[in-house]
């Protein structure tokens, strides 16, 4: 892993030279070292060198107060809070839908195809529109972004939970029947604990999707804050270093969120003696 990362970094530096070279005002005779040092220190390069991106992240995070729009952590928090709120919506909606689909046959037949169809619709395409429209009604800020993130993230949760709630085999259900257990007991003692093993893989995908939703919701809406807004302004004004820094920050955010899920999973695992 480390060596591959190293190779990729070297490739990145190498690639930056031919990509950035056409924009440099250097005469034909310039040597490779001059070319390289110029290509790796441009103000608005086509491909910024890794150290430039790191430096941008470093100064942005360390030398500006957390509440300042010049601090990337501020934007990351704006996006993350929308994504987390969306994840909350997705959890409630996804689990409720799954329970409905598992317990009500009519819903299984009529709703499930639409749940699947809802994901073939490029939801992200309507994301900015939803934000604009809700904005005209005076609903701005976190809620529209969270709604989009939630719409995107509920699907893997629903699918995982439907599979999980149906996972008990006939033997385990018969066992509950011999106890003449009430449906509520079958749910709390068997179906729910069993479904947790299926919830976590879905949750990992949902976390990533809710971040995507939050970022895209910030795109062409005139949003002032958030990683999506940083991407867009960076793109408009050709601030490639800023753009890449925002992109790296989005990736870091994703990793942090996934670590959060992994920790929750580990806590559940611990309570179950190490197996889901």
């Amino acid at each position: 892993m480390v060596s591959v990362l190293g190779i990729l970094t070297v490739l990145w530096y190498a690639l930056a030279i031919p990509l950035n070279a056409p924009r440099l005002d250097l005469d034909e005779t310039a040597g490779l070292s001059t070319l390289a040092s110029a290509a790796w220190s441009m103000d608005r390069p086509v491909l910024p060198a890794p150290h430039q991106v790191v430096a941008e992240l470093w100064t942005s995070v360390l030398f500006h107060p957390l509440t300042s729009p010049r601090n990337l952590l501020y934007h990351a928090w704006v996006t993350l809070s929308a994504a987390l709120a969306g994840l909350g919506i997705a959890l409630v909606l996804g689990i409720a839908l799954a329970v409905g689909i598992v317990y009500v046959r009519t819903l299984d037949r009529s709703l499930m195809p639409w749940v699947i169809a809802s994901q073939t619709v490029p939801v992200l395409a309507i994301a900015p529109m939803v934000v604009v429209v809700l904005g005209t009604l005076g609903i701005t800020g976190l809620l529209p972004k969270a709604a989009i993130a939630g719409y995107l993230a509920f699907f893997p949760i629903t699918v995982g939970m439907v599979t999980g709630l149906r996972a008990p085999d006939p033997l385990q259900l018969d066992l509950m029947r011999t106890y003449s257990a009430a449906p509520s007991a079958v749910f709390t003692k068997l179906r729910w604990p069993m479904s947790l093993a299926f919830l976590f893989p879905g949750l990992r995908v949902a976390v990533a999707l809710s971040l995507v939703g939050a970022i895209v919701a910030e795109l062409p809406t005139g949003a002032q804050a958030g990683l999506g807004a940083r991407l867009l302004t960076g793109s408009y004004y050709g601030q490639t270093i800023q753009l890449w820094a925002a992109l790296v920050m989005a990736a870091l955010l994703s990793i942090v969120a996934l670590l959060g899920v992994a920790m929750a999973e580990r806590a559940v695992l611990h309570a179950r003696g190490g197996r889901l």
Partner: protein
Amino acid sequence: MRQIRGSAVFAAVLALASAGIARASLPGAPAFALLASLVALPLLVLALARFARRDTLAARLASPALFGALLLWLWEMLVLGLHIPFVLLPPPSAIAAAFVTHLGTLATDFRQTYLHAVIAGYALGCGAGFAVALAVDRSPFLRRGLLPLGNLASVMPIVGVAPIMVMWFGFDWPSKAAVVVVMTFFPMLVNTTAGLAATGAMERDLMHCYAAGYWPTLLKLRLPASMPFVFTALKLNSTLALIGAVVAEFFGTPILGMGFRISTEAARMNMDIVWATITVAALAGSLSFGAIALIERAATFWHPAFRR
């Protein structure tokens, strides 16, 4: 007897629903619309429950269709009945009208976004992902290095590379196709690698007994066994590809394309055109997903999920 009753209920529901919509669209008949919905709603739900208990193909298709009709009808009723502003949510009838009026524009946008960017990017991204997966599978070095990266990348907000691709490849469709390539590459890589590793120890021992080399084992055992995983990625990617292409258009495009249409018409508050474009996207997404699912069914008929 039960079937006759079922279809009678169904017919009654359809009649009432269409009457309800017709009258609700006309001004001055809210009482009738309300009455119609009061009667038709429970009947529609009853019909749904009836279909859900049957196992015929017709019933399996009818219940989601009926549910969809119910949703559309509720949408129309609510928008008209509650006087929801047009910008917030136009009624389905207005969207259908816009669809017909702007068919030419919609077709050009579709060609630009779907036929060019999506299909080219999808084929390249999936193909590259598959090829790299074979290489990763062959080389332990790549597996140790590239696979964790691939796993990480497949849960990253990749769509963020869209502005970079637009800068590199220009405003026209190749930059959108590039975004689609990046977005579809990693899911295909991760799934195919998992699929190639999905054979059982006993099945591999069998090939070992036959002294089968790398290629026969790959062709006879591991590739067929990986097909369910490959199709999972193909289905997932069909949705991702459309998303990637549309979002990439938000960052700059010539004056056509579905993403461009959505963002500009939304800014002009022409919500019926926006929704018509979304309908096109939804249809394209659903149909390509369905087509891949059909191919999957034919190619992996042996998989437990499809056995009957």
